[in-house]
């Protein structure tokens, strides 16, 4: 099966997004971030010594997985019922709430996605195919006011340049951006009202449930031993949050 072939080739191909702190690429090209770190450790325990990461848009991840471009998605791709239909998720790994990045003082007073829908001139930036884009569309923001932003830095820049009014990402991603930008004219609103806390998991192809189950076993062991917390907490994620929920709950099963 898939796990055997991964063991044989000695590496697993994972999709990441280059969105710190979920996923990050260092100056020397090495991949880090909470999600790949966890995946790397679990795969090691499964007898797959290496992970090879390729950066991808959120929207391209699931098609890429189905097209066998990746063996797993470990990128902070949050579990939502319709995604659970498309892929096989592991148990939760990284949990985070949604946040807005806004100009200082939040001049238009946005607190929720619905607020943005209500203002006919407001535009919101979000990664293409990400949870935030979906949330905005579901809250009634028309397609042409949801600007698909290729990456965090572009979103930050577009907000600074006044091309968008709000930029929405998970809390920790926004914090990371704010820390890097150190721009006193920006502020973060977290959490966004009415938006649930989401958790991601490693996503596998629907037919690779055996691999997923093996992954879950090792993941549970790590959660138990505390190694899990040691890996993700330096990035600001809470291990407790991941332990307190389950795939079944998040996928609405």
């Amino acid at each position, binding site marked *: 099966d898939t796990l055997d072939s991964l063991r044989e080739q000695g590496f697993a191909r994972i999709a990441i997004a280059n969105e710190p702190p979920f996923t990050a690429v260092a100056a020397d090209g090495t991949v880090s971030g909470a999600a790949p770190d966890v995946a790397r450790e679990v795969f090691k325990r499964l007898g797959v010594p290496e992970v090879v990461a390729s950066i991808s848009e959120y*929207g*391209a991840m699931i098609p890429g997985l*189905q097209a066998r471009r990746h063996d797993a998605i470990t990128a902070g791709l949050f579990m939502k019922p319709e*995604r659970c239909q498309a892929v096989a998720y592991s148990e939760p790994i990284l949990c985070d709430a949604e946040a807005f990045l806004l100009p200082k003082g939040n001049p238009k007073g946005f607190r929720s996605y619905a607020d943005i829908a209500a203002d006919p001139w407001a535009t919101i930036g979000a990664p293409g195919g990400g949870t935030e884009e979906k949330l905005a*569309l579901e809250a009634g923001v028309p397609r*042409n006011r949801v*600007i698909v932003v290729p990456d965090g830095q572009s979103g930050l*820049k577009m907000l600074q*340049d006044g091309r968008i009014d709000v930029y929405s990402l998970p809390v920790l991603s926004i914090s990371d951006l704010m820390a890097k930008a150190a721009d006193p004219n920006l502020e973060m609103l977290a959490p966004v009202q009415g938006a649930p806390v989401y958790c991601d998991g490693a996503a596998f192809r629907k037919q690779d449930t055996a691999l997923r189950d093996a992954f879950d076993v090792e993941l549970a062991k790590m959660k138990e031993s505390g190694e899990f917390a040691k890996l993700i907490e330096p990035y600001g994620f809470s291990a407790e949050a991941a332990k307190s929920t389950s795939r079944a709950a998040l996928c609405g099963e």
Partner: protein
Amino acid sequence: MEWDWAFVAEIMPVLLQGLQLTLLITLLSAGVAAGLGLVFAIARRSPRAWIARPVGLFVSFIRGTPLLVQLYFIFYVLPDAGIRLPPLVAGVLGMGLHYATYAAEVYRAGIENVPRGQWEAARATNLTAAQTWRHVIVPQAIPPMIPALANYLIAMFKETPLLSAITVLELMNQAKSVANSSYRYVEPMTLVGVLFLAMSLVSVVLLRWLEHRYGRLAK
């Protein structure tokens, strides 16, 4: 993954909307390219080296670097210099600028294609420089350029998907957006291909007709 006709029917209106924007972008960019290209062509012919040289270098630089990177540059770097363009405008300017360098080449060839005797006849009948351009050179230079220019128009049409990188919701971006929320790439991408091919085939026929009608510039 199966081909799903119901899904095709569902996404078609969105894609057609994208196609509309794509066509609009193409036409606007073509306008920019045609105008700016003329400026380049004339500047490069200038007897003043301080005009001709830098313009020549600039044109060569634009031609030698990818449009995608130029678009990023216009969209993300220029705002630091206080030039903040909406995505559509940035895209049209970027693409127009890029293709202006090609158009300039066509103009040059077209102008050089007018025999020297025509310049001399204009001089012998004492026309001014402006009158010579307006009444003698340009009317003769333009028709043979038309097929070559049309060729670049088609090329431009095919490069509009690059504008998705700077958040313009043209055909390709619409398709990606559809794919992102449905996790299906097969139908949207194939349809985009089909739409492009259909448009191109139509334009190839048009081009053949133009070449027949106006002749072709010698290479």
